[in-house]
């Protein structure tokens, strides 16, 4: 069930009405959310309910076991067993064919005769998200950062909670489980803020992300290598598409959850206003980057193990972050590129300016760094290594005449980009996500009306699925 669909609208309206009727009856509300979440997941593919139940049951039992174990060595053994199990499940469904294919290619390259073998494995939606959440649950109990939850139904809801189930944010158990256990209330504040987030998310997805899709496809699905200007325009369009697609999804998820009285984590905070890679990763897909930091980078030693090891840890974390996005070499290359940016950045000491000079240097650094971010998106979006090579060569050599041979985005998308840029800039400068509430009612309503009108214009165009569903 896609957030940007009528089916979801019916699901939400009907579900919210029932939820409101069950006000002050927490366990019934939780039961409704759990059944609704499983129904939501089953709409993607009913077969994978068994998988989510398997992960839920196994991690819950491991958590109970670790909570009871006093001996750290025993706890480590338990956590190791569950981690291996979870990664095997993830590896089988998401990476099996990739590794087999890569091994076969390597063997063929070395001159060995091998028969190509593929298993017909369907990737279960959201598997990376709920496997990571189950891992953080057992790890947090192991570190005694939280007690194991005693109610299985609460834990099951933590894993399956539908607003964040399919494309995140990756929620921490210590943040979400207490909210599941506490009474919740439907308030005017929740409804107004939740509705605004849903509207903003739909606007980003339908108007900008979907609007940019034909431009991006006209460049990256082209059989010939386009000229450098077209490649640049296609890549900028993809930077907008992926940001609005993913942050739009998160906004809708947070908005829907807000209606239900549950706060989900922020996943994006103006990432394209970053002036260096470490700032970018504090602003982009924050729930994944903090997960990788806390459960991979820091256990590897983080930055407490000497300069060289720190760089190696950074690179390893980003390579695995790239692999998390999908079983393909270009994602690994993208991860490696991001790691390289972080390593290079760690050697740079930015000059200290004050006043206007500081502002100018910040703007220049942001614009320059955005070009590096976009080249990363080119690696991410490219269909093959050959395309990456051809596009890079064309960008460097400008061998073809410069002409904008790309599909033009619709008017709604162009207007939408301008509106979003102004909105993000205002929010960034005010430092408050709800800055617009200080505006007088007519002005505030004007913003909502613009978003509604542009969304209606965007709806008149073709649809597309959320990009992050594939991860």
């Amino acid at each position, binding site marked *: 069930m896609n957030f940007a*669909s*009528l089916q979801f609208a019916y699901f939400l309206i009907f579900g919210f009405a029932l939820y409101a009727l069950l006000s002050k009856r927490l366990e019934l509300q939780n039961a409704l959310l759990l059944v609704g979440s499983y129904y939501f997941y089953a709409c993607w593919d009913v077969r994978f309910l068994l998988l989510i139940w398997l992960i839920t049951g196994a991690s819950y039992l491991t958590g109970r076991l670790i909570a009871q174990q006093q001996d750290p060595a025993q706890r480590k053994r338990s956590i190791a067993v569950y981690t291996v199990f979870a990664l095997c499940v993830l590896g089988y469904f998401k990476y099996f064919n990739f590794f087999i294919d890569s091994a076969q290619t390597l063997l063929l390259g070395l001159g060995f005769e091998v028969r190509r073998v593929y298993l017909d494995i369907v990737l279960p939606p959201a598997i990376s998200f709920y496997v990571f959440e189950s891992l953080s649950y057992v790890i947090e109990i192991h570190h005694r950062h939280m007690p194991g939850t005693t109610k299985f139904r609460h834990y099951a809801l933590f894993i399956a909670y539908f607003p964040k189930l399919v494309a995140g944010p990756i929620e921490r158990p210590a943040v979400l489980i207490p909210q599941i256990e506490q009474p919740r209330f439907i308030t*005017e504040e929740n*409804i*107004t803020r939740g509705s605004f987030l849903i509207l903003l998310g739909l606007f980003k997805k339908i108007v900008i992300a979907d609007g940019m899709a*034909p431009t991006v*496809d*006209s460049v990256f*699905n*082209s*059989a*010939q290598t386009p000229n450098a200007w077209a490649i640049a325009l296609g890549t900028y369009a993809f930077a907008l598409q992926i940001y609005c697609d993913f942050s739009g999804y998160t906004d809708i998820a947070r908005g829907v959850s807000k209606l239900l009285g549950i706060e989900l984590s922020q996943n994006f905070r103006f990432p394209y206003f970053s002036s260096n890679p470490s700032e970018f990763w504090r602003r982009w897909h924050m729930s994944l980057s903090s997960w990788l930091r806390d459960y991979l980078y820091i256990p590897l030693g983080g930055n407490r193990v000497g300069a060289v090891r720190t760089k190696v840890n950074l690179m390893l974390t980003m390579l695995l972050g790239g692999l998390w996005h999908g079983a393909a070499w270009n994602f690994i290359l993208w991860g490696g590129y991001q790691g390289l940016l972080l390593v290079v950045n760690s050697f740079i000491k930015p000059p200290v300016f004050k006043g206007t000079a500081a502002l100018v240097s910040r703007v220049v650094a942001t614009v320059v760094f955005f070009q590096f971010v976009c080249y990363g998106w080119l690696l991410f979006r490219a269909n093959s290594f050959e395309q990456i090579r051809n596009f890079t060569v064309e960008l460097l050599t400008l061998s073809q005449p410069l002409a904008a041979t790309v*599909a033009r985005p619709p*008017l709604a998308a162009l207007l939408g980009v301008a509106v979003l840029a102004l909105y993000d800039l205002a929010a960034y400068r005010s430092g408050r996500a709800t800055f617009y509430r200080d505006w007088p*009612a*007519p002005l*505030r*309503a*004007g913003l*909502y*009306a*613009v978003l*509604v*009108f542009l969304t*209606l*214009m965007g*709806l*008149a*165009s*073709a*649809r597309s699925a959320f990009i992050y569903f594939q991860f």
Partner: protein
Amino acid sequence: MGTTRLKHILFGPSARVLGWVIVWLAIFDLGVSLSFGSRAGSKTSLGRYFEYGRSVEGKLERSMAADPKSEGQILSAGWLSQEELRQRPSRPADGTDLLVAVYGQSFAMHAAHEAAAIDKRITIRGIGGPAAPPSHSYAGYKADVENRKADVVVFGILSASVPDMGSMSGLIWHFENPAPFTFPRYRVQAGQLTEEQPVIRTEAQFKQAFSTRSAEWDRFKAQLRTSDRGYDRFTFEQSPADASSIVRLVRRGWVAHDDGYERGVYDPQRGFDPQSEDLQALKAMLADLGERTRARGERLIVLLMHAKGQSDHLHAALAPSLEQAGIEFISTHAIFSANDPTNFLPDSHYVPAVNHRLAQALAERIRRPAPVR
């Protein structure tokens, strides 16, 4: 509910903001109407953009009121009347040696005319309708038989038009520019291909029924309601709400996101469902066409043409049954990739270079001796 709470809901800050949103939207609506509502304004690209969502009946009314000489009208296209069919060439023109009868839509006609430009000894007799589905082409072949004896029959199938076999008229699936021509709905029932004829079958009949909104028009709409998979009262029927640009945007979005024709027939990832009603009917049609042409001593060539992004899906769905029936075919997937957007014009047709390659393949196939069956 207490009076204070009721007052808060009705007149509180949220209600005030909501009221202002409605005022703003009304202003936008009025602004669009004032900017693009005039005759000159509605001819600009932005004006047309906001016009597209008018109901089918609303658009038809405007089309009929417009001057057919100065404005691109497609009211007359696609009708399968004998009067229309008799106007096409019935034998090879002077200096040519082959009459090639083509049934399809613009894609098939472009390829055929380009093939005739490559091989100047070919005379084309084209029968088609705007984006016509195979059911229109099949009905066209049957209606046209008595008017000619073709050497070669080219039957063009556009992959994107196959799901439109669930329709009986170009009014609905051709929503942005409704073309009223009609054609039968075919189904396979008890192993036999059945035909349901539309209530309205000629342009004159249509104009009379629609302009007077006669009982026949109501009967036609009732037939569409039951026999056209894409019929929807909200998008079809004219109402005062047509005057609102916001309602028009909603209607256009509603149509853009409705996959009424494709549901169960075509999936962008998996391609055509061979068990679907339309695929079954299409296979039966092609088998019947193979027999009819064979009986008349005509040579049949089927053009399998893939629309943008549809890979080789049509070929995958039809090639085995065409081979089994011994019917010659050309599939565009072997000539160019439908997944490469640079092969398509913004209006979704093939770019001239690609069309030329398809035409070359067609011209070459027409001249190649027919395989022995």
